[in-house]
């Protein structure tokens, strides 16, 4: 069951498209990552999903079971959350809860619960102006959750944090996964791999790879051969360009990384190659690529 589906979602700023025909389908009950380098259009996409920005074209459809203003069912934490500094943490979350449709009593109860969940019990009576970056991030998560949304959207929730803050927030997200669906954006594959189930890799406003994380990892774990030679391998490498076992090749003067379809065929072909032998092989290693390699390849190329 999909919570949000976007079709051909496009946003153009002064003639250049930040988001270009994006098709997403965010499923209920799982954690989805929107992964991509800076400038890929992640924040713009999230802003359109939350209704803060209007798409230039394309559609956003929220699950038909949840009728009315979709903001009711979404909790959002921007990359740099800005609060009213004159309010206390507690006041802010209660205010957010009331705006989300809770009664004062319910909002207060929920606030109590959430502030202890995010670990702000001790500072809830302090003015937000005095909060640290990590505290604001956690307060931001509390205010996003206060009206019990069906989906919470987090924009780069950990990228501005130090390693400890990062661990805390990721831990928190793991807990939240049990109760609500999460969509978050990041430019770090590792963060996505750690907690998400589905992944969308975006580049230049388009989805380049999408799917179940485990499946993708399996699918893109291609056998790879690392080759090193004493003589320059560059010229020779052109000779295998059109081999049908070759998927991708990348290298420097004396090193070559070859991703292949069938490891046995490739090994046979390479080891029996006379020209290659003359280049004096110093290293011949067989390994498997990770999603990281794929991500680098996709986002760099």
């Amino acid at each position: 069951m999909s919570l949000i589906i976007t079709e051909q979602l496009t946003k153009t700023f002064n003639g250049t498209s930040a988001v270009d025909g994006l098709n997403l389908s965010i499923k209920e009950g799982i954690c989805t990552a929107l992964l991509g380098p800076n400038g890929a259009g992640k924040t713009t996409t999230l802003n359109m999903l939350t209704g803060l920005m209007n798409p230039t074209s394309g559609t956003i459809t929220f699950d038909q079971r949840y009728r009315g203003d979709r903001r009711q069912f979404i909790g959002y934490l921007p990359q740099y959350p800005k609060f009213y500094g004159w309010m206390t943490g507690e006041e802010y979350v209660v205010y957010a809860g009331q705006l989300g449709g809770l009664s004062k009593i319910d909002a207060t109860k929920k606030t109590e619960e959430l502030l202890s969940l995010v670990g702000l019990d001790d500072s809830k009576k302090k003015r937000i102006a005095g909060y640290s970056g990590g505290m604001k991030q956690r307060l931001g998560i509390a205010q996003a959750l206060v009206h019990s949304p069906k989906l919470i959207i987090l924009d780069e929730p950990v990228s501005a944090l130090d390693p400890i803050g990062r661990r805390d927030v990721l831990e928190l997200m793991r807990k939240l996964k049990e109760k609500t669906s999460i969509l978050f954006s990041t430019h770090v594959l590792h963060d996505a791999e750690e907690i998400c189930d589905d992944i969308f890799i975006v580049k230049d406003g388009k989805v380049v790879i999408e799917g179940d994380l485990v499946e993708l990892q399996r699918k893109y774990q291609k056998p790879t051969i690392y080759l090193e030679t004493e003589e320059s391998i560059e010229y020779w490498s052109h000779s295998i360009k059109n081999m049908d076992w070759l998927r991708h090749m990348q290298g420097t003067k004396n090193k070559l990384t070859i991703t292949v379809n069938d490891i046995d065929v490739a090994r046979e072909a390479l080891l029996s190659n006379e020209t290659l032998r003359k280049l004096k092989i110093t290293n011949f290693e067989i390994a498997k690529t990770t999603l990281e390699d794929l991500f680098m390849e996709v986002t760099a190329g």
Partner: protein
Amino acid sequence: MNEILLELESIPWGLIAPLVIIQLILLVVALVDCFRHNNTNGPQWVWVLVIVFGGIIGPIVYFIFGRRND
């Protein structure tokens, strides 16, 4: 000398006192806010001077331009 004293007596202080009191309230509130906030536009001590020596408009100028909104 006596004339001045007479003049002073003839001034209806009951009417003037509220002006002084309001001026004082403004001054105190502005100072309290200035010290409590620590995030003024520009150096804090300048604003303290403005509030104390700025007469009636000192505290008002502080409230309008001195506080950084948060």
